[in-house]
């Protein structure tokens, strides 16, 4: 009799203990979600407030009146279309050049044996580890001396495109993926008199779709968000990408008009948010791949 009551009490304590643990763990997880979601929430909410309300103390968690004047300012007071166009041109041009440069190189590194291959591949790895914050001064000086079609090259978009022509990390990833394609498939294609170009673009590339998508994703995100490189290379307003335009919102008006600044930043994050909402699973998988390989 006594024993069973003790047992019961034990079981009860155990059950309470477990419930407490569970509640705590759910609470903790919600807290993490809050910590990472709140800044985004705050950015969007602030962008919808009037200036007066945005600096009110204590701040309001939900706008009393919805006000779009921040967005109106961003869209009318500066030539957003031009900056957007620059960003898109840079992104597409970089991707196109990278494709043409990266695919043959990766193919050669994966499937050919030639003298100097080890050295050249080591160069790719070293380049992958060399950040642009080391090389920007010499590259800037090089570009400052160059002309293209009668214009100073610094007044064109080329300085934001050419330095990224060879994507060392991309070559590394694509080589890895090409190496997994069995030799027999290539031999069979050669017996069929398929040219090397044909093998590359009609056999190897379609079989490495996932890797190509990963590289394209990295390239897009990196170029859309780039701040340092455009800051160094842009000497005229006409070549600025959208990030620099949004960064200059702080100086657009006297004092920091937070709703306007937040409206600009919401707009610049929007494509990324949409992309992530559509393909978050794939994006996460391909990003994790980079670290595991």
């Amino acid at each position, binding site marked *: 009799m006594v024993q069973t009551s003790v047992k019961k009490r034990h079981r009860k304590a155990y059950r309470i203990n477990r419930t407490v643990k569970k509640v705590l763990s759910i609470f903790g997880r919600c807290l993490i979600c809050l910590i*990472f979601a709140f800044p985004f929430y705050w950015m969007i909410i602030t962008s919808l407030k009037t200036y007066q309300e945005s600096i009110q103390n204590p*701040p309001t968690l939900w706008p009393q009146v919805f006000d779009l004047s921040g967005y109106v300012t961003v869209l009318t007071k500066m030539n957003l279309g031009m900056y957007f166009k620059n960003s898109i041109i840079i992104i597409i041009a970089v991707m196109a050049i990278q494709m043409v440069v990266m695919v043959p190189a990766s193919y050669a590194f994966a499937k050919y044996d030639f003298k100097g291959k080890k050295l050249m591949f080591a160069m790719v790895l070293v380049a992958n580890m060399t950040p642009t914050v080391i090389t920007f001064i010499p590259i800037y000086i090089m570009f400052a001396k160059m002309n293209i079609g009668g214009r100073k090259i610094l007044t064109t978009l080329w300085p934001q495109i050419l330095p990224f022509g060879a994507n060392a990390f991309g070559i590394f990833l694509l080589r890895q993926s090409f190496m997994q394609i069995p030799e027999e498939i290539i031999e069979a294609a050669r017996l069929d008199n398929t040219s090397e170009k044909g093998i590359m673009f009609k056999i190897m590339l379609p079989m490495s779709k996932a890797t190509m998508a990963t590289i394209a994703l990295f390239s897009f995100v990196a170029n859309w968000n780039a701040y340092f490189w455009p800051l160094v290379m842009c000497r005229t307003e006409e070549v600025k990408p959208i*990030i620099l335009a949004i960064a200059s919102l702080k100086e657009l008006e006297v004092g920091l008009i937070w709703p306007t600044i937040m409206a600009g930043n919401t707009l610049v994050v929007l494509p990324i948010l949409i992309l992530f909402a559509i393909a978050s699973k794939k994006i996460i998988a391909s990003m994790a791949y980079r*670290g595991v390989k």
Partner: protein
Amino acid sequence: MNSISVQARKPHRKLTEEEKAKERRKQKTRPYFMVAPAMFFLVVFTFFPIVYLIVLSFFKYNLISKMQFLGVDNYVRLFTVETTFGVALRNTAIYTISLIVLLIFLSMLLAIWLEHSSILNAIAQRLMFLPHLCATLTVAVVFQWLMNDEGMLNAMLRFFHLPALRWLNSSDTALMSIILISTWKSLGYYTLIMLSSLKSIPTELYEAAALDNTGPVRKFFKITLPMVSPQLFFLLITITIGSFKVFDTVRIITEGGPGDSTNTVVLWIYNKAFSGTIQVGLASAAGVVLMLIMAILTGFYFKALNNKIYYQ
């Protein structure tokens, strides 16, 4: 469609000796043609600039007048006259060490905590990862707003009757605030890498440990840690290199201030090369120092840790 492509195919025939030799020669030179464009870009935009940077570091140059040879003067100045460079170097070191400790510890912890699949965990993982994809500009500006003297974070502190902080506006807390922002931005990415590494550990190992009644702490140190060591190594290197080149956040929010409390090496180099009295040679010398630090650290990691890592 199909028949056309069959007709278009070259007929198989025996190659003459001359053609064979030609084909062999082509086979030999072809790979060089294939890597040539990549090598061209790498040499022009990575290797030549490195050499040029080293050359520049021995000269006095302001982009306009003629270059003037100085020898090692720039390097001597970096560590004597230019006291702010030492400050920038110290700040960068504090920033890097803090991020290494915070990110590795927290990403391990969160990965273990969020590992088993549930809806809440999936949501948490996605939300954590999102800042990694967003522009540093946006993250920096939003946090500048949150950390404003009259901003949301201080409002929260006041709500809980805690003293408000001056965050980015005081030289005591500015660097800490920058570290906090960077941790927030990249924690999700590193947690994700640790997560996918945890998932690749064979479950048999844990089952065997369960049979032996191994405690959770022992399990962590004897199974989990050795199995994720390659990823930890990757984290260590990426965080180190990534932190040493910190620029965007400080340039956008504090421009190195208040005082020089958040000045970093890259910001210092950038300012010497592009603003005020332009001193390209001095900036280049600092660039060479930064490059050497990164190279030595990476080399050291590889040497010191390579034999302690367990590769599957």
